[in-house]
């Protein structure tokens, strides 16, 4: 309950996103059909919260977070820690480098291109691009590593003895992993998405982000595609294989909220701006993966209203299914969404607690959205 020092207490960013997909089966149930739900008495297409959330989480991996900087940051942190413990400049740097290198994923070489790899290692820029996302080390953990190095006279090779990067990672994990993890340990993605370890509650992190199931704004019935496959060298008449695929096509309403107070708690107040930027961008690029090879559906956001506010969170119910107007389902969906939110804002008055709002689509692209959110976070922190 200790929220007194939390400058973001009670604040959240709400993403109200509309996104249309042509024929797809973004999220399957256990018989392979696209998931559905009934809202306001009509059947809708549905993508479960966990499905899209997972893709956003995976997308974080490849973008937003300046991974190079993060690795570098760790090297510097370790080096600074070592220096504080009276290591020489050279020792400190070596220790930092050692830890950093564990997390640099080298390209698959299979022995034939050793020269290129050697060059890459001497060229920090190139190797940073290869950097994989990694555990974000907390001050406690840095201290632990530094102390281990100190015990061995700041000779990093005595702590990290293995040659193989994966084995080194395990050594490091063993070194830091045996005690209670603190909130910063697992980096921004776990701060955002939380972590539940059943019965090892000390490792739990309450998620800062929360996703509703994406539900179409309009009535959707799944359709069945019957198909046959022919054998090119056939000896008998008829098809070699028959099957059916279910699919649909829908304009989804996605509600995602990012609890800034919780995020601040999880990150112990640091890296708020980075986390918000990475999360927003990941939210933008992530698309459910099901059946993408056969039905490739990679549509971007069509429209979004992003609100920074206090007060109880609120999704647009689209209880009355949107109907096509002038050949468009998107336009009336946007109208329904904005009208609903405007009306709620008016009805709730001060309790709506709007601190800022930006709309994606029209004049603003995703960079504008990110810029705007970063500005708000910077102002509040």
């Amino acid at each position, binding site marked *: 309950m200790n*929220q007194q020092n939390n400058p973001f207490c*009670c604040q959240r960013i709400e993403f109200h996103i509309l996104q249309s997909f042509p024929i797809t089966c973004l999220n399957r149930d256990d018989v392979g059909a696209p998931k559905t739900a009934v809202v306001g*008495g009509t059947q809708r297409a549905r993508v479960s919260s966990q499905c899209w959330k997972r893709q956003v989480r995976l997308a974080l991996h490849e973008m937003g977070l300046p991974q190079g900087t993060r690795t570098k940051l760790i090297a510097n942190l370790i080096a600074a820690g070592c220096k504080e413990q009276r290591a020489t400049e050279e020792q400190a740097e070596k220790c930092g480098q050692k830890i950093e290198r564990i997390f640099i994923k080298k390209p698959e070489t299979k022995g034939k291109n050793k020269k290129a790899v050697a060059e890459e290692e001497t060229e920090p820029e190139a190797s940073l691009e290869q950097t*994989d996302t990694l555990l974000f080390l907390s001050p406690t953990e840095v201290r632990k590593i530094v102390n281990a190095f100190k015990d061995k006279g700041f000779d990093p090779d005595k702590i990290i003895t293995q040659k193989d990067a994966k084995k080194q990672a395990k050594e490091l994990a063993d070194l830091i992993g045996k005690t209670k993890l603190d909130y910063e340990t697992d980096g921004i993605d776990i701060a955002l998405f939380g972590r539940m370890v059943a019965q090892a509650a000390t490792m739990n992190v309450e998620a800062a982000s929360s996703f*509703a199931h994406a539900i179409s704004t309009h009535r959707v019935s799944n359709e069945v595609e019957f198909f046959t496959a022919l054998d090119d060298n056939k000896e008998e008449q008829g098809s070699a294989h028959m099957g059916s695929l279910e699919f649909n096509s829908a304009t989804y309403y996605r509600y995602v909220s990012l*609890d800034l107070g919780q995020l601040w708690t999880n990150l112990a107040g640091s890296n708020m701006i980075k986390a918000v930027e990475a999360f927003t961008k990941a939210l933008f690029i992530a698309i459910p993966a099901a059946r993408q090879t056969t039905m490739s559906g990679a549509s971007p956001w069509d429209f979004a209203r992003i609100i920074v506010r206090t007060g109880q969170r609120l999704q647009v*119910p689209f209880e009355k299914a949107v109907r096509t107007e002038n050949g468009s389902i998107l336009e009336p969906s946007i109208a329904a969404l904005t009208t609903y939110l405007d009306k709620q804002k008016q009805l709730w008055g001060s309790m709506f607690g709007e601190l800022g709002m930006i709309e994606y689509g029209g004049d603003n692209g995703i960079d504008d959205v990110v810029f705007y959110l970063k500005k708000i976070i910077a102002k509040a922190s």
Partner: protein
Amino acid sequence: MGKKYILLWIEAPLQAWGADSKFGRRDTLPFPTKSGVLGLVLCAMGASGPQNDLLAKLCSRELQIISYVRSKPGKNGQARVKVDKEPLLRDFHMVGSGYDDKDIWQTLLIPMKWDAIKKKANKSKNADGTRGGVKMTYRYYLQDACFAVLLELPADMNDSISDALQNPVYDLYFGRKNCVPAEKIFQGSFESIAEAWQKAGILAQNKQLLEDFRVLDGEYDGDIMTLNDVPVQFGEIKKYRDRRVTVVSS
């Protein structure tokens, strides 16, 4: 002495009120549980952890629920009639499938056992070419449900709880975090049950909803059920005791 009642409006496309879910099947009752409602209140107050004292003050307070359904116009200008409730939605979910256990980062996402050891990854690949442990779960949801919930509060807590519900510390949700409210939850605090129900009646009328059933604390005429949903302690180790409720159809 010194009682107040708050009216909560619980409306969302999806809700889940689990009372006795085990393993991979996550059920929902057809109406909000007491633990769910008090959880909502504590979330709003930013009260995490066991909260035994707070729960001791709240858990025996009266709770009444009205479940509403949508209506359609009656034939020949008759009064509106109820529309059948939607069936439960069953959501199929595979936990931890498809992560690459060769990737340091992705291994973090693979489910772990209680002792924080990763589920032993399969030596061989799964059918879809992935590795690692997978857990299959079924989650049930109420679709399109709408409830008015009346909760008795000690008078001295009325203001703080009312304020908290309007400016909650933690995100408010209906049973599962993905069940996001689609209407203002806090609908006022009242001196008597009758006043609160009057307000609920107006809201329901505006939304063209009809009362379907009520859930009352205690034993009355109607279907009596025993629920193990009175929270005594939240936090890591949750403790509940049971209560009798009566479901009265209207």
